[in-house]
């Protein structure tokens, strides 16, 4: 048993890593089909038009509920985001499942220069309960 422990530990570790990797791969796929058109491949957005996700204080911030709401319901509040305004209207994604939302948010929070925590399905669920 003692001998098998490291192997068990390793496989658990491997499993965890691969699950996480999977999240980001799926998240990237969703990003490419649903977000890239506006927020661009570099996450830099389009000045005055589509907000940047790379370097955005909200995107890497702690208000996950707000991010979930934006992805699900779309966004066009025209309030200053890090000091700038954007003229386009963000598409709603009412059909995205909780897992998809967790994946795409995890992707945008850890890509480019963003180094925030990933978002779990439990966090997405909690956010939706909050409304």
């Amino acid at each position: 048993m003692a001998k098998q422990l490291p192997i068990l530990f390793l496989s658990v570790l491997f499993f965890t890593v691969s699950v996480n990797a999977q999240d980001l791969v799926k998240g990237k796929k969703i990003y490419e089909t649903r977000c890239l058109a506006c927020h661009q491949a570099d996450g830099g957005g389009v000045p005055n038009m589509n907000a940047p996700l790379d370097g955005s204080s909200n995107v890497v911030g702690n208000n996950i509920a707000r991010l979930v709401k934006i992805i699900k319901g779309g966004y066009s509040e025209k309030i200053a985001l890090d000091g700038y305004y954007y003229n386009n209207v963000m598409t709603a994604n009412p059909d995205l499942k909780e897992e998809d939302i967790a994946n795409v948010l995890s992707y945008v929070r850890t890509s480019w220069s963003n180094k925030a925590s990933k978002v779990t399905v439990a966090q997405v669920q909690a956010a939706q309960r909050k409304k």
Partner: protein
Amino acid sequence: MKNLKPIFLFVVVILALNLNAQSNAGLKLPEGFKATLFADTIGSARHIAVTKSGVVFAKLMYPNKAGKSIIRLEDANKDGIADKINGWANYGGTGIFVKGKDLYATSDNDVYLYQLNDNDEVVNPSSPKTIVKGLIAKNQHASKSITLDGDNNVYVNIGAYSNACQEKDRTAGSKGMMPCPILDSAGGIWKFSGTKENQVYGDGKRYATGLRNVVGLDWNTQSNSLFVMQHGRDQLNSFYPTLYNDAQNAELPAETMYELHEGDNAGWPYVYFDPYQKKKILAPEYGGDGKKEGGENALNPTVFFPAHMAPNGLLFYTGDQFPAKYKNGAFIAFHGSWNRAPLPQEGYFVAFVPFKNGKPNGEWEIFANGFSGLADGEKVTNVRKVKSRPCGLAQGPDGSLYVSDDARGSIFKISYAK
């Protein structure tokens, strides 16, 4: 002191290199043309206008750091660089137009009229006349651009607050509304008196409809008619991936120029113009499949250009400074695309179309390039990193061409040296 010498030399070399790199303000121009950086970092400069004495006015999309949104620029020592710069007003917007001593400027809702004195200084910075008020400005295509005809009528673009008039804007699977209710109050050009105060929708008329969003427009004095540049629709691939792949979306639909007369309809949202089939194609939101034609009564474009390049400025050149081929032709400032992603972006240049007697007379070509700040031949893939984005155009009294840029906030002055 002695060991300062190398540093001094180094600084001189760097300065020289810098100046060299900045020849023609970094622009690439046809033989014989030169450019100066007339102004830099003045704020998000949208449209510009020049008075008969050569004073330049720029309208900013947002008030600049000093809180001003109309900027006056004067080049007193005539070296091609503005040396007296000040401003007023605190509302963002795009439109500006000067006629004699009348200076028109727009917010996203209203058209204002300011008075200039003999020195082309504004007389009433805080009390302009309100010419038109209460125009629709929702979250999209809200900016109002303007031009005047020879009879003091002002033409205002009222952009559609939508991409394709879907029941739910920019949402996959959402159908196009029939008829599109947006067209009652937007998605067209409205005509008002340029002298009457406090006009609202009912005082003007819808001059032309079926135009998704126009930013560049100009009155052509040869044909005595209005010309506009439409921004074509976005995201065919996002919403109809089975009909359009990324490469097709990057090239569809064309950006289009129209000559407009009263009552004209350019077909948005029901059709778009396909530059390959050279036809008006039914929009997929209205049952189109990429091939079915539509818009029998809609205009065909006067000229069409590659997709998504965002034509933000249009100017018919009436000056005598440039070579003969440019006389009465159209300059178009392309702001540059974003909806070609994941393919490389296009635009970010000023194009030229020769005209004769108010009709296009030859192919369009790139006139001024290099605004993006990238190396020759390098394509824009990171829109955020682009240095300058051409937006407004204006002609100086000496026939020079001014180009504004709302990214870095510069104004370029382009002249021809015989």
